[in-house]
């Protein structure tokens, strides 16, 4: 059977103008392409400022893409006007990073969760709206009594579950999770991740899961894409990336994962990535990573490597291979 793709991103580019300088632009997302299979979880990782969130926000069309195509369930939504996006909004929802900022402080939890139902006029009556809201509250482990409360009365984990409930109440097919756990306590992260996984089993949801924490992404994802300075440098199956990382940047990221066993930690090679991420306004020529790469060759400074398949769906953009 042919694979069905829920989300296809083709050569997506997003530039932001720099205020005060008409010619300079921030190269937030540079020629990114990937596909997410139906019912699978695609993890997108990379350090802060590499364009993960911009990529997510462009896909869900908070931002207008500069170039490239976004195809959701076979439909190209890249350049649709706001009015025509209603269908996309039903299919695709987003969970935000900061559970404190993403919930309106002036609304009760009931109204927050009911908002998508009202926006898409899914429920026929007030009563039906309430029923679905209460149903959703049950599923995320909150009680009916919480419905009349305001968001600020809840803890971070509870709020993020409210965010999950809001995103999932209209039963979307694909959910973009923009670092849904990075603002939470470690003790609560598992709670939210497990909740997301439960929904995946139950409804066959597709996720685009963004994180900077590789250890959590490994637990969650089926496939992982590594981003650096607006570009995808490596894509492969989740298990493969931990066993055979190819790109030097991926190796560096993996080396940065703390090891919870002191004996093993002492044997660990010190992280090989040094320095800071270069400015996305004027990214370095050639391979964007060559300024920090321990294996950089002369060609890396001149020619931009392309994403090539190394066999078994393992793609990497590096001159070493």
């Amino acid at each position, binding site marked *: 059977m042919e694979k069905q793709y829920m989300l296809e991103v083709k050569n997506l580019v997003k530039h932001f103008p720099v205020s005060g300088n008409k010619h300079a632009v921030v190269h937030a997302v540079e020629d990114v392409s990937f596909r997410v299979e139906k019912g699978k979880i695609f993890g997108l990782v990379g350090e802060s400022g590499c364009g993960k969130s911009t990529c997510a926000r462009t896909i869900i069309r908070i931002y207008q893409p500069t170039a490239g195509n976004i195809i959701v369930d076979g439909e190209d939504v890249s350049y649709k006007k706001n009015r025509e996006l209603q269908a996309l909004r039903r299919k695709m929802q987003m969970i935000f990073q900061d559970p404190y900022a993403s919930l309106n402080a002036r609304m009760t939890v009931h109204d927050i969760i009911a908002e998508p139902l*009202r926006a898409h006029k899914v429920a026929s009556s007030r009563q039906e709206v309430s029923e679905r809201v209460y149903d959703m509250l049950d599923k995320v482990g909150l009680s009916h009594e919480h419905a009349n409360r305001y968001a600020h009365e809840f803890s971070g984990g509870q709020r993020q579950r409210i965010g999950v409930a809001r995103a999932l109440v209209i039963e979307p097919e694909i959910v973009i999770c923009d670092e849904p756990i990075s603002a939470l306590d470690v003790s609560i992260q598992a709670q939210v991740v497990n909740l997301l996984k439960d929904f995946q089993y139950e409804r066959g949801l597709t996720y685009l899961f963004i994180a900077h924490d590789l250890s959590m992404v490994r637990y969650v994802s089926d496939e992982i894409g590594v981003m650096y300075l607006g570009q995808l440098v490596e894509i492969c199956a989740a298990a493969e990336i931990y066993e055979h990382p190819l790109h030097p940047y991926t190796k560096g990221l993996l080396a940065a994962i703390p090891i919870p066993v002191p004996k093993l930690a002492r044997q660990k090679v010190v992280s090989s990535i040094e320095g800071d991420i270069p400015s996305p306004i004027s990214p370095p020529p050639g391979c964007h990573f060559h300024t920090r790469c321990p294996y950089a060759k002369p060609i890396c400074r001149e020619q931009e490597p392309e994403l090539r398949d190394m066999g078994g769906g393992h793609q990497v953009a590096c001159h070493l291979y």
Partner: protein
Amino acid sequence: MNEMMRQSLPDYQIQTPDPWAALPVNAESREKLWSKSRTFVGDVWFRFRSKFTSIFGFILIVLVLLFALVGPYFATFTYSEQNLDFVNTPPVFRAINCSGGYFYITDKLKVLEIDAQGHLVGKVESIAEDYEKKQVTLSYQGGEIIMDYSQSPYTMLDENGERIEEAKHIWNRTYLLGSDNLGRDMLARLMFGARVSLLVAVVAALTNLVIGVLFGSISAYCGGMVDAVMMRIVDVINTVPLTLYVILIMVVLDAGLLSIILALGTVYWVNMARVVRGEILSLKERDFVLASRTLGSSTATILFRHLIPNAMGPILVTLTMLIPSAIFMEAFLSFIGLGLTAPLASLGTMCNDALATLRTSPYQLFEPALLICILMFGFNFVGDGLRDALDPKLKK
């Protein structure tokens, strides 16, 4: 001693052998919120009333409202009723007891008869005036009495021709707050003036809330060209001085309350529009607004359920500053003669009228000024309290 201490230990220490043992945890207690649940209105009211100043301001406004709306039904005089005999009578008389009656000498050297309770009886007619001695002879109940103005304070002479030095202070029972320079009741005029001020307050509040908030939020939310054009309109309106604007309107309409209200109503929202725009510009980039957009909510939903409620704090602060300033503006325009025409009264025209007799009858300026102060206080306190009450983050 030890025995006694052990007996006084609380029960739980005896029941639990290990004081460090963990208490049982269940899902219910973990998810429980410990604050009390209330409805929105109940919540706002609870927070509003828990602050003394806001309740105090609220009471002040209610009192002024009652004073302005219900007061005239209990007043003896209407705001335009004149009595030229009783001009500039103060709230408290310096009454001189002479020949069995009480007399009050006005600043224009007229002598008024008062009864013992303080009611004004009438003007005492003068018969002759001795300019050298500075004495006036008046006829009173068939006899004659003499008023002496040779030295201050002016007083009456008794039968022996001696000055009566002692005087009694009696409250004015006819005009409780005195009368103005045309013999009109200050109390009745204050009531009427308060009505005008409150009307102006309501008009200013409505135009600010409707036009100002909508204009500002639409301008900010749409952004780009729309924003630029709408804000230039605000700039243009803002450059025309309000005084000039009122004069221009009065060319078309007559001078009076209508033109003031029209002027305030059409241009008084520009400050509010600016404040709201600034607030919404920062709010619209916040995550919860982006979230609402990804949820598929309409522009109206985003504006009215997300942006404007969250901008309510600055809106109310601006409103509480703009209402008093609108009241002030009306008073000012009336004061310089662009507002109400006589015999209508507003607090501003009353202040203006009082200027002529400021030295002899300061109460005529003091009373309307006090009422303006009370109104300002009331609105400021209420606005302050409302802003806090509408912010659910301050919930106790």
